[in-house]
Each structure stands twice: as structure tokens, then as C-alpha cells.
């Protein structure tokens, strides 16, 4: 961890238009929760539907994408990353710092609003709020690591990340049951199911698979990012 690098990264991510996107999605989530509460359909089924469709299915991959690639991809894009890499800071430390920044952003913009939205709907009934907040937390951390790695591997990180989140986890996951085992969203649901006792939460992946998978993916992606940065070459535009 390097405080200076972290500070610069925070400023780069939060000081630009990117923050609008980071704020937009949690605000939409809270708005939906309030609306559902006012319409008077704030029951457990609705809350779980909102959590699964909006939080796990939409907000988490998008925020992970925006924060995970946002901490490093713009610098690589305009070549200013060379100033960072030429400093006497170990490259794995840079990778870990960038990852920590992205993960902290996801805690703030994904896990906290998730808890609030579930709390607005059904308070702490049958553990939906803490369960999905925990699920959003671990999945957010995993997403930020994966998309950070994607950001240093390719310049088309965002497009590829969107394809992974939408096509693999959305389309293929709903058609081919086996693909669900390799989906961060499903792992998040498994984690959420541990605290939530609601009968509406169904999982396909066992805890014994989800936890090691999450750890391996997160740690692996950060380590690979560090390795990749150690022998990094700036290539031309497009």
C-alpha cells in the first residue's frame, strides 16, 4: 500500500465525470426502494427480487467495471501511467494499492446502499439486508480485482467486461446451468444466502465452492495484475 498513489487514484476517479456514474446507480437503487415502499409492495419477495435483479445482476458488475477499470485504465490510455511506473515503488504494491482503492469504492457505493435499500423495504426481516450487503461486499471486491486485471491486460477492458457480465453471467448462465458455477454473481448469492433466511433466495452453488472460488479469483487477479505491471509495455493507440 502506498498512501500517495492511493490519494492520486482517489482524486482521479472521484474528481471526474466517472463519479456521476458511480453515484447514479446507488441513487437509482434507493429511489426504487423508496418507490416500492410508497406503492405499498414492500414485502420480502419484492426485496429479494430487487436485490437479485438490480443489486447483484446490474449494479455490482457495472460498479465493479467502472471502479475496477477506472483506477488504472485511463492512465494507461493517455500514457501518464509511465510517470507512476517510473517511480521507485514496487509494481505489486501499485497493483495492491489500486485494488484497495477500487474495493473501497465498491464498499461505499455498492455494499452500503444495498443494506440501506433492503432496510428501507423490510428493515432487517429474515436477514435479507445484512445477507445481500455481505454478498455485495465480497462480490464487489472480487469484481474490482478482476476488472483491474482486465484493465491492465487490454485496452478494450470495459467492452470485454460488459460482455462477461451480460453475456456470460446473464445469457449463458440462464441457459447453461454449468456456467453458473463460474459466475461471481452466483457466488454472491451463495454468500447472501448464508445470512438471509428468506425462502425466496435460491442458490445453485455450494458455500464450499463459492468461498474458495472468490478468494482464488480475487487474490489471483491482484497477483496477476502486479506481475503484468512488472513487465508492462505501452502500446500504441487502438
Amino acid at each position, binding site marked *: 500500500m502506498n498512501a500517495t498513489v492511493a490519494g492520486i487514484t482517489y482524486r482521479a476517479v472521484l474528481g471526474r*465525470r*466517472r463519479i456521476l*456514474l458511480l453515484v*447514479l*446507480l446507488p441513487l*437509482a437503487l434507493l429511489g*426504487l426502494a423508496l418507490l*416500492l415502499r410508497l*406503492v*405499498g*409492495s414492500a414485502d420480502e*419477495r*419484492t426485496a429479494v*427480487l*430487487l436485490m437479485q*435483479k*438490480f443489486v447483484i*445482476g*446490474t*449494479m455490482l458488475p*457495472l460498479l465493479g*467495471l*467502472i471502479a475496477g*477499470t*477506472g483506477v488504472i*485504465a*485511463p492512465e494507461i*490510455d493517455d500514457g501518464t501511467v509511465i510517470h507512476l511506473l517510473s517511480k521507485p515503488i514496487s509494481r505489486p504494491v501499485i497493483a495492491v494499492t489500486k485494488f484497495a482503492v477500487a474495493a473501497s469504492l465498491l464498499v461505499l457505493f455498492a455494499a452500503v446502499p444495498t443494506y440501506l435499500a433492503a432496510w428501507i423495504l423490510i428493515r432487517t426481516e429474515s436477514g435479507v439486508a445484512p445477507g445481500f450487503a455481505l454478498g455485495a461486499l465480497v462480490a464487489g471486491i472480487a469484481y474490482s480485482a478482476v476488472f483491474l486485471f482486465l484493465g491492465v491486460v487490454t*485496452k*478494450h*477492458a*470495459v*467492452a470485454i467486461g*460488459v*460482455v462477461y457480465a*451480460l*453475456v456470460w453471467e*446473464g*445469457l449463458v448462465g440462464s441457459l447453461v446451468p454449468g456456467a453458473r458455477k463460474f459466475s461471481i454473481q452466483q457466488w454472491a448469492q451463495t454468500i447472501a444466502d448464508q445470512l438471509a433466511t428468506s425462502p425466496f433466495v435460491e442458490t445453485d452453488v455450494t458455500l464450499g465452492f463459492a468461498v474458495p472460488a472468490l478468494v482464488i479469483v480475487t487474490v489471483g487477479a491482484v497477483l496477476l495484475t502486479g506481475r503484468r505491471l512488472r513487465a508492462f509495455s505501452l502500446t500504441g493507440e*487502438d
Partner: protein
Amino acid sequence: MSEPASGVIHDIGYRHYDGPRLGSWYATRALFVYSLRAAFGFGRTARAKIMPFGLATVMLLPAVVSIAMMALLKERGMPYPGFFVYMQAILSIFVASQSPALVAPDLRHRVLPLYLSRPVGVPQYAGAKLAAMTLAVFLVIGVPLTLVYAGELLIDLEGPPQTGEYLAALTTGLCLALLLSAFGLTIASLTPRRGLGVASVIAVYLLLLAVSGVLVGTFESIGSGTAAAWSYLINPFFLLDAVRVALFGGESASGQYPDGPGPVLLTAALVALGVAALFLRYRKAAAK
């Protein structure tokens, strides 16, 4: 010192251009062709072609399966009207990943003043980009539909060919392409960064998709049919499907849409809004 002949200093021997001047329309057409090529990655590296061609190929898969079903099993596969509704994830990824390819480089390298110092004005520039993106999206929707229709004509199934359904799907597909392109380009042109542009466009689509899904589910569960019907229309793909049902009749690709001209008027208003936003955005970008 002798007096130099007047005008000598300025006449340094360059030849004047006295060929035909092709004018604004020609320049706009050139920009349109260039942008259309950029939408599919022509004239760029091989890596820039992977995404558009990969997505276009995925769009062709249902058509290929459908033709195979017609040829081997003698039954219809994919219905024409539901095509773009089922493929909405692929289509929105296409719009998200390719809109920044059209608008981001010019903003990023600040070459907009160079374009606008030519006979191309802001309306022509924005219009050419919009037309190119619309045609690109329309090709991605229309080519698979046309393939299936051609297959249907060749294979000679029982009953008359579904020409009406095919034309209805093509027409609404064109409106959908215009709607998606107008908003996709406007959102993408807010940032000179390609990655952020892709993320913004897809974020807006996913937001609409999820809000629509959650609201429909909730309103249906509390038995509020009208509200649920309108909630479908938050998703642009269902909106255009509702337009098709309103204009051409036929089955809805999902649930019940609101009756009457509501969807058509809403679509017209949204298209006008999107196009106006794009032109205003470029008027502001050109002033910088």
C-alpha cells in the same frame, strides 16, 4: 536598392486549386462513409474489428438455426417480431461498444474545429454520425432477418410467407436503431474517453432494463395491470415492440403493453429528444 515588383513577395509559386468544388453534401457523405466503416472497425486494427464482428456473428446465430430448422424440420424457428427483443443484450453491447468508436477519437484529439472549418457544419457532422450509427445498428438487426426471410422464400414452407411480419420487424428495427443510436451517441459524446463512454451507455441500458424488470414484477404481483404495462416501456426494446404491436398488430414478445397510440407517441418524442440532445451537445462541443 531597386524597387521590387509589386506582389512578388506574396506570390511564392503555389498553384491554385481550380478543380471542381464538391461542397458540403459530398463532405458529409464522406464523413458518413468513414463513420460507418469505423462502426465496424474497418480502417482500424484487427483488434478493433473483434468486438463488432463478434457481436454481429452472434446476432446471425438465431438466423442460421432458424434456417436449419426450416430446411430440416419444415417448421419456423425464430419469429421475426421478437428477434430484437430476444437479442437485446447483444444489441445494446454493440451500441455501447461502437458509439464511442464514432465520437470519442474526434473529441479526444480535438479535431472538431478542423472538421467545422470545412463546409461541414455542426448539423452535418452530427447528422452524418447519427446516420452512420443508425445504419450500422440497422444492418446488425436487418441482415439476420433478411437471411431468414430469404431462407423462408427458398425453402417453400406450408402457408404464405410471413412478408407482413418481416416488414413490420424491419420497420420497427429501423426506428429502434435510430432511437438507440441517438441516445448512444449523445451519451458517448459526453466524454472523450472510450472506456468511460462504453460504461456510460451500457449503464444507462442496464439501469432501464433493471428498473423496468423490477417495476413490472412488483406491479404484476400487486395486480396493477396498467402500471405494469407502462413499466415495460421503460426498456427501449419493449417500447419498440409495443410500437410494432400498435402499428402492425401481432403478438407481443413479452407481456401486455398499454393500448392506444401511447407507445408510438412516446417513441416519437424520445427520438426527437435524442436527436435534439445530440445536436445541442455538438453545438456546445464545437464552441469549445
